[in-house]
């Protein structure tokens, strides 16, 4: 997030996009509820009639995968009606002319046809967003999990910049991170092309700095992304994998493909707290510790580095993960002397400027938001206040590209994978928490009652959902929240793994796969 959670509620209007906030980020939803009661305006862009879509001033129920067209049309309205922030555009950005020209390529009428949203609604949303004081954009995986997710995010950035909605309280481009430490994992260089602190592996100076600190040399070529690794495992190009705390068997697209890839590896080591579907395939399984059993830090969606305190001992011989990784390194001949996570963070502080002032002792009172370059620095609640990191904000012309796999006669429904309130990710934790499991014991496929009626499906009917890659069976739930022509299934459930169906088509830049759109057929089981 460029801004902070507490700051969000000071917005006059929030544009919520691809986020079922009440389900995936309920505590942020609570804040938004309070702000709505106090008069904040809300625009929701989502194909599904989520709880917030029902509470919104304007709900734009776009056809899945048509976000770029919708945002371009909104920007066109803004520019046509003179609602843009000219001084911000002039002082802080570059590429405006190019962007403006690209907007002209798509008429509002065309956009209405692509997105399935009436012209008037597009205009109303644009006016509300650009004409209401402070405007913030909040988005989630509904925006990024597309083959053109980067384009979606760029379009969001364009919208924020041309309306001057960045760098001030109550504004910003604010992705909500799905897991507790995705932000930190990226910060720490858990990315195939970026070193800790977002330095490119292709940046020779950065490579040298890290190599000097770590010893040895760093490969100047970017590595493989998750989905590429799975493919390379399948072709035999990748021989070994070390998987820590992830369960790609359920979380990655086209599960059958994931399984054959992992099985084809020469050596697979999995470090986890349970024998997950992925761990069951491993050659070596290393028992790790839960968050309650270790010390360290998590970085939340607003870049806040917070202290994780150990509360209980890990069971049996299970060990904290940092210690296991250290011992593996030492088993391979390294000489790592870390005695505690604090030692690790002290090294991070030396190498990652954003974390320069992150000392454990400073984190006890609510943590610190990076960038925090020095111990005297209080942290940064709002990014890009004076200027962007790269100087001027780059406005980019973006073309609308349809989703990779769209419905046809054989597979007439759009399949959308997402989350339930009661469960999390691949369910390895929540499905082993009795009360959550009691509240929602298993998967339900959401389908619109009109579609269900045509297929003779009733609430609770067992149905089979089939894509080109696989098939699952689960009970149906009839709900208006899912639009006609699409079905929705949370991906937490191994017994009806949503990712048996999903498409591995991925974004060319960030390599995120298109989990939100693929074509399926629906039948009674």
């Amino acid at each position: 997030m460029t801004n902070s959670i507490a700051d969000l509620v000071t917005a006059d209007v929030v544009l919520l996009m691809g986020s079922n906030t009440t389900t995936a980020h309920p505590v942020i939803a609570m804040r938004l509820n309070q702000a709505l009661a106090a008069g904040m305006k809300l625009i929701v862009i989502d194909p599904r009639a989520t709880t917030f879509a029902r509470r919104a001033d304007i709900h734009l129920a776009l056809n899945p995968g048509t976000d770029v067209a919708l945002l371009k049309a909104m920007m066109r309205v803004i520019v046509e009606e003179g609602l843009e922030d000219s001084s911000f555009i002039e002082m802080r950005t570059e590429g405006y002319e190019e962007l403006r020209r690209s907007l002209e390529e798509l008429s509002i009428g065309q956009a209405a046809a692509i997105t399935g949203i009436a012209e008037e609604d597009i205009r109303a949303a644009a006016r509300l967003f650009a004409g209401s004081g402070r405007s913030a954009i909040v988005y989630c995986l509904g925006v990024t999990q597309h083959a053109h997710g980067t384009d979606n995010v760029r379009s969001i950035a364009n919208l924020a910049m041309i309306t001057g909605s960045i760098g001030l309280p109550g504004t910003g481009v604010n992705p909500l991170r799905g897991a507790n430490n995705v932000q930190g994992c990226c910060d720490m260089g858990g990315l195939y092309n970026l070193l800790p602190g977002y330095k490119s592996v292709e940046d020779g100076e950065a490579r040298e700095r890290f190599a000097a600190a770590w010893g040895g040399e760093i490969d100047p070529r970017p590595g493989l992304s998750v989905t590429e690794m799975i493919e390379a495992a399948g072709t035999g190009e990748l021989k070994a994998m070390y998987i820590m705390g992830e369960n790609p068997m359920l979380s990655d697209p086209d599960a059958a493909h994931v399984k054959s890839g992992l099985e084809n590896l020469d050596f697979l080591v999995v470090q986890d707290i349970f024998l997950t579907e992925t761990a069951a395939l491993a050659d070596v399984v290393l028992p790790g510790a839960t968050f309650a059993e270790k010390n360290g830090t998590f970085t939340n969606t607003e870049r806040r580095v917070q202290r994780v305190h150990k509360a209980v001992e890990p069971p049996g011989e299970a060990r904290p993960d940092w210690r296991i990784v250290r011992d593996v390194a030492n088993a391979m001949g390294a000489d790592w002397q870390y005695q505690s996570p604090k030692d690790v963070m002290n090294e991070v502080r030396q190498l990652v400027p954003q974390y320069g002032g992150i000392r454990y002792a400073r984190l006890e009172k609510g943590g610190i938001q990076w960038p925090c370059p020095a111990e005297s620095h209080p942290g940064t609640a709002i990014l890009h206040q004076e200027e962007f990191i790269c100087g001027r904000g780059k406005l980019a012309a973006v073309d609308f590209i349809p989703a990779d796999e769209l419905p046809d006669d054989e597979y007439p429904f759009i399949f959308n994978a997402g989350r339930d309130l009661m469960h999390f990710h691949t369910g390895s934790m929540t499905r082993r928490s009795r009360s959550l499991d009691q509240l929602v014991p298993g998967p339900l496929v959401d389908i619109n009652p009109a579609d269900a009626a045509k297929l003779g499906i009733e609430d609770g009917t067992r149905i089979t959902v089939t894509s080109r890659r696989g098939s699952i069976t689960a009970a149906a739930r009839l709900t208006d929240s899912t639009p006609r022509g699409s079905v929705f299934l949370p991906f937490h459930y191994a017994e009806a793994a949503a990712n048996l169906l999903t498409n591995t088509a991925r974004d060319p830049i960030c390599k995120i796969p298109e989990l939100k759109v693929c074509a399926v057929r629906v039948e009674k089981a």
Partner: protein
Amino acid sequence: MAEAAAREAERIEITVDGTPVAAWTGQTVMEAALAAGIEIPRLCYDGRIEPRASCRLCIVTVEGERGFHTACTLPVAAGMSVTTDSDELKQARRLTLELILSDHNAYCLPPCQNGCPDKLDIPGYVGAVARGDSREAVRIIKQRLPFPRVLGRVCPRPCENVCRRGNHDAPVSICTIKRFAGDDAAAAGYDEPPFPQAEPSGKRVAVGGAGPAGLTCAYYLALKGHQVTVLEALPEPGGMLRYAIPEYRLPTRVLEEELEQLWDLGVELETGVAMGRDFDIDGLLERGYDAVFLGLGAHGDHQMMIPGEELEGVVSSVDFLRRVRAGEKVDVGKRVVVVGGGFTAVDAARTAIRLGAEEATIVYRRSRAEMPAHESEVEEAETEGVSLQLLAIPERIEGIDGRATGLCCLQAELVASEEGRRPRPVAIEGTEFCLPADTIVVAIGQKPKLYHEEGGKRRLFLPEKDGVRTTRWGTIEVDPQTLQTARPQVFAGGDVVSGAATVIEAVAAGRRAADNIDAYLAGDDVVAAARKFTPAEPVYLDIKQEPLVETPRQPMPMLCPEKCCNDFTEVELGYSPEAARREAARCMQCICEAEQNCDLRRLAIEYGLTENRFQGRMRPVPRLDDTNPVIHRDYRKCIACGACEAICDELVAARAVSLAGGGMDTYVTCAYGRGLEETDCVFCGQCVSACPTGALDNRMSMKQRPLPLRGRPEEVQEVDTVCCYCGVGCSLTLHVYQGRVIEVSSQNPYAVNEGSLCVKGRYGFDFIHHPDRLKQPLVRRDGELVPVSWEEALEEVGANLERIRDEHGGRAVGALASGRCTNEDNYLLQKLMRSVIGSNSVDHCARL
């Protein structure tokens, strides 16, 4: 809008209780005061919701304005001067609390626990026995009482008189369950203290008197790390336990085994040294003791003050029992009369039978129902051949040649006394009758004896120069709360303070004194410490009347009467494990789960509301709803403050909660009286976190919370950490008990979530202790994953990764970091990949 206004707020200053406090315009007095660390009493206030002013406890006065204002709704104004604490405000708040409590139909403490002078966690240890866990039961008991095996045999069990099970069939046999737990744990060899002994403090304490008060005090002081020496006048330790209670009721062996734990803790014992003769207060302090506890007991006899009392053959019960216990040969003759109705009288009569008396008669002034001895003791005595002469007032003792031959009495009738007192016996003229007797034992009570008799002169134990004051009843004067005497280094408790009372009262005094002495030695405020350790408990109306299956009380197995009366073998045999479990299962567990975090209870204690003058009204509300997997609702405890409804509406926007009833009968339930599942409830538990009482509770935590937890919040560690689910990074407070997370809340005042949590954060934590957890490294051998040592597993991983790196290059290896692991975990994994293996192929799924 409020947020826009907040952006333009101005800094102003107000005065709260004379202290300048910085505030922002637009804030309320409550917000400004809390931000400045000034507490204002409140129940319905929750910073997350719009103030409701419904509890009216946060009233304050404003200089220059009339009447009370509720601080939660009163806007600050520059220069405003607010008073939050005055006699007038206290009085008004007290009245408000009394009204709230008038129909708050719930216990704070279970009646048995409240009825116990030592406030033992009875449902806790009875529950542990019901689960078959005697060791845990003993651990719970020893938190407040070091001698479960002794008290399990001799306690007068005031708890059983108030046991609510007694309203249905018969009270739970609490005392015998305690005895079972103690004997069972001892037989299994468990003798550990309830908590680890503290490091040596370097402080020394002298304890005068090795009776139940002194020994208990010594035990807890030793556990707290102090060096304790017990000084005892008699040859052996135990006081009345050893010298007054007969062997058949409390075998010496049991007493000595339980005393072992004191010596194991390093308590030293000097016997044969008497206060006032061999040592005095000044002397002890000069010898380097930092504090003194006096538990000198009550060794003086009350006398009947009737003619003939000086005759030979008239003995005091204490002398009599002591001589028997000390092994002296005592000849009681054929007929023995015992005067009195207490334990000692029954003990003396039963002892007389064992010494060969053919007849033993207990003479008591009132009727059987008023006898202070426990019913079961009286019954056992009768079984053994003791007869009762009730409603008889001794008038004179007959004698020949200086030797008593009989006791003459008048018949009595009972006349009602003022309320709360026992009926008074009044002699009926002309009804005299005489009981022939060879020995007359006077068991009408003891009193402290704070002097030695030397050649007919009394030498006081505590001369004025010692600075310890005594009362006109001959007891030591102490502050009733702190048990501190007029001399600050000296504390006292037990019979020497209370007059002759029960063992359990002496034990309670010893334990309280130990707590207070510990605070004194640490230089803490003893009064504050005492208040913390023994809050005055509010007691409220009970309307729970669950239908119960009638289950008879398990009988106590006894030595058969033919065997029992020839010697001093223990008569009561104690429960078998099966009987103990069956009996313990009869306990109704009358506990309030919210006891430790109920704001209403805290305020009631603070305002000294131990009884309620408006008590008695019952609201027509449903009983409780425990059908939901996460939220437990007990309507009787609802004070209709509306905080739950507000938080559900304002934050969650689920409108699952609404008010029902109306007027004085208002309570909070679900809209249209439906179950929570039928509403839009998202089970986030925000309502539970806003509830100031136990009306709403976390059902799962209630189940997880082991019963023994109650009453000992210090055994639960609270660890602030960060949630493991979504990216918001809510601060979680993990409540840890015996190495397990049993509850989750959010207490950190700096938290990004401001105390709010969702259903996963609050209730999704039992995966931590799930049996499926991986506990050992596994390596695949012949297609199967088999457990191996860490060395073997690391060797396997290291060798394979090295082999593949060396054969195919580092780029043939990939790794998945994790959006759920820590920064440190992830940093090291990518460092391993990049610097040891030589591959940039590290990524994670969760960013998808």
